[in-house]
């Protein structure tokens, strides 16, 4: 894990710091490149727009990072985003109809957000439960819940879009769309990203919980014998991932002022790429929130950069594929080099 490894180089610190910035370097290169390729690329506003797009898979990527650290994977994130968006949109436009009583309840904004987030957490719990209780492979479990969540999202409205989800003064459920607006020029999504990132990073680095999930990913058996509640913590992690996805779903719905059941299709891949580009190891036990955010920005910069250069979507696909692989390869090299230097440091230390 970037951070961790770095410390190792007692003496050769500055080289390490450089290496630590592995992916940061790649990001820098990309930014410089596009700044020349497209005149208006290097500008505050462009930065904000990219940040706004990045926020979405950044937040997802953080949840994903946690999951991958435990040695798992969560394919359901995109579908969960779609579902929670639909739940929110539905509650705003149609409220909650309790058939037997024949009444329709309209909730206030806080409740709407709470319920929609809860839906995500619930699916996350389901993932964790199936994975830990029946030890079904995470890939399959979340592939299954992905289908389930997507299906439910569509069933909520029978495939229709909830449009103009601004709520009504009368019902006191207005304001949802502010999740998509900017506050003091900073997109709400970006602010939320920062908040979640700070919390997630602290949890991971400064609390027993964080180290416990790192241990689970590193060696589940040893973790268990060290008295770590493997099942419980793993489940919590999937719940967190579900939560993040739900938030993303709401933000994206708010931005469009409309909730569409197909929202989030394929986003899981962006989230995973972000995490891995950020140095998270697919084999678990290694990963950092900071890295993931850098990873998310790499993806964002490629996407928007190429769009601004007017690259055809076909080439965009090809280039994206190449860059992702290349970035990870470079990352590998730097990591090995780091490990080497660590050993060196150690033996000099002797």
């Amino acid at each position, binding site marked *: *894990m970037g951070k*961790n*490894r770095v*410390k*190792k180089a*007692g003496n050769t610190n500055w080289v390490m710091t450089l290496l630590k910035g592995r992916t940061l370097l790649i990001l820098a290169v990309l930014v410089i490149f596009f700044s020349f390729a497209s005149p208006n690329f290097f500008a505050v506003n462009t930065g904000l727009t990219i940040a706004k797009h990045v926020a979405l898979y950044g937040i997802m990527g953080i949840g994903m990072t946690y999951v991958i650290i435990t040695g798992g994977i969560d394919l359901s994130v995109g579908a969960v985003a779609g579902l929670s968006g639909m739940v929110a949109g539905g509650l705003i436009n149609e409220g909650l109809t309790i058939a037997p009583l024949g009444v329709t309840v309209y909730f206030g904004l806080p409740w709407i957000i709470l319920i929609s987030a809860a839906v995500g957490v619930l699916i996350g719990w389901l993932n964790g439960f199936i994975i830990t209780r029946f030890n079904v492979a995470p890939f399959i479990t979340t592939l299954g819940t992905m289908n389930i969540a997507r299906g439910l999202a569509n069933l909520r409205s029978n495939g229709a879009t909830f449009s103009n989800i601004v709520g009504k003064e009368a019902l006191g459920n207005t304001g949802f769309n502010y999740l998509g607006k900017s506050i003091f020029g900073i997109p709400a999504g970006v602010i939320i990203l920062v908040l979640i990132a700070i919390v997630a990073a*602290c949890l991971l680095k*400064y*609390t*027993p919980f964080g*180290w*416990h999930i*790192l*241990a689970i*990913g*590193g*060696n589940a*058996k*040893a*973790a*268990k*014998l*060290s*008295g*770590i*509640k493997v099942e419980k913590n793993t489940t919590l992690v999937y719940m967190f991932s579900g939560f993040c996805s739900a938030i993303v779903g709401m933000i994206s719905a708010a931005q469009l002022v409309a909730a569409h059941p197909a929202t989030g299709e394929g986003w899981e891949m962006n989230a995973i790429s972000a995490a891995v580009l950020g140095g998270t*190891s697919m084999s*678990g*036990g*290694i990963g950092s929130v900071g890295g993931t955010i850098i990873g998310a920005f790499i993806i964002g910069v490629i996407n928007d950069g190429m769009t601004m250069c007017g690259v055809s979507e076909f080439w965009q696909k090809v280039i994206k594929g190449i860059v992702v692989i290349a970035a990870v390869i470079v990352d590998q090299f730097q990591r090995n080099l780091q*490990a*080497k230097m*660590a*050993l*060196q*440091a*150690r*033996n*000099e*230390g*002797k």
Partner: protein
Amino acid sequence: MDKNVVLHAEGMNKIYPGTKALDNVSYDVLKGKVNVLIGENGAGKSTLMKLIAGIEQPTSGKMYMDGEEVAFKDTTEARAKGIGIIHQELSLFPNLNVYQNIFMGREQTTGRFKLDNKTHIAETNRVLEKLEHVMDPQTLAGDLRVGQQQMIEIARNFLQDDLKILIMDEPTSSLSEQEVEVLFRLMREFTEAGIAIVYISHRLEEIMRIGDNVTILRDGKYVARAEVKDIDVPWIVQQMVGEGKSYPKKDREIEWSKREKVLEVKNLTLPKSGGGYLLDNVNFNLKRGEILGIYGLMGAGRTEIFECIMGLRPEHTGEIYKDGKLLEIKSLRGQIDNGFAIVPEDRQAEGLVQTLSIGKNISLSSLEDYTKAGFIVKKKEDEQIDRQIKDIMIKVADKDLPILSLSGGNQQKVVIGKGILTNPDILLLDEPSRGIDIGAKTEVFDIINQYAERGVSILVISSELKEIVSIADRVIVLSNGVKTGEFVHEEVSEDQLVLSSYKGHGTKKSLKEN
């Protein structure tokens, strides 16, 4: 060159990033002899063998077999020259069965492609027969116990005809006297057939029995070579460590009868899947500050006792009392909170988190103790870690280095340190000295004693007689899940232990089995 030398290695160097694992070592392997290679953890034994077996390539240095120079770029090439190796770390395929494991990489085929499983199975049975370790060749390796797996590891190399050199890197680390006997007999057969054996072990008394000549390495350098008949254990230790060292002799004058029982196990019984018992009405107790040794043949059920106590075997029956109170064992975490700590048998698989630093591996079990408002207070944590490192003498440049940068012995100490940091009343150690050198071993025992003195009660499993005799205040012997003996320190003698360890086995056949 002497025609008794099958292989001569000249000026071997191996440099790993930052480590000089081997420093200009020259080495002769003598035909029809048991060539012993010893040295402390990290001395370079395995590295030298890896070079000879083609697993790694030397940074510099030449090797000669009957006169001509040889170089192996992988194990296949080495094998072609008649060099086989039994690896120090078990390297089996849990998902494959016994005969697949044995023949992996040396498959027999009918025609060019079709696997010849008839032969595979027949051969497997033959070899296992020889090893007196009969088992169903269809069994998945993953379902075997450590010891049995070690046997498979050994069996793999017994197939090779045209074998010239057999390297055995700590083959007995998880075998008990019984199996060791069998192994030694086979080794004799080999040497009589003119095959050269390179034998690595940390069990010095073994070496004195089986070895013909001894070569000693220290810090990657050649130190000395001698005929076994001209030397003794103290001499070896002298050469290995530099200054003399041996097992600590314990002289504790304690009226155990007056000491209160901290742990009382009554009628502990554990059914074996598919009939029979892993543990059959086992009773024993443990006093404050006492070191209770558990001896037994591999497969006797010792680890199971620990698993029951730690709540890993909910299906067990019988009562376990701590300080007189009956425990209802819920979870492993619960047991840790109840004041137990376990140091598991298999360091790599169950003891360490390889992705974490040395420090974190030490503090992992007790992180909650260093928190304030839910957050870890770095200072508190570091204090404890540093204290542990000092306390149990872990040789480490920087606690933030990856755990795997430590040698076997020090890794073991880390695992023990982790257990101790939960400051337990009762410490369970399963084979705490497996595969660590005498230096590290004595240190580990010092640690054990030191904590016993402080009033921690300790249960320690060991397959090594000398070790358990010297360290334990009292020893109980398990055989086939039955408790067959109990001896207090004064009266423990090695032969008594051996005797009792067979009591549990009825026929000669079943004795081979377990």
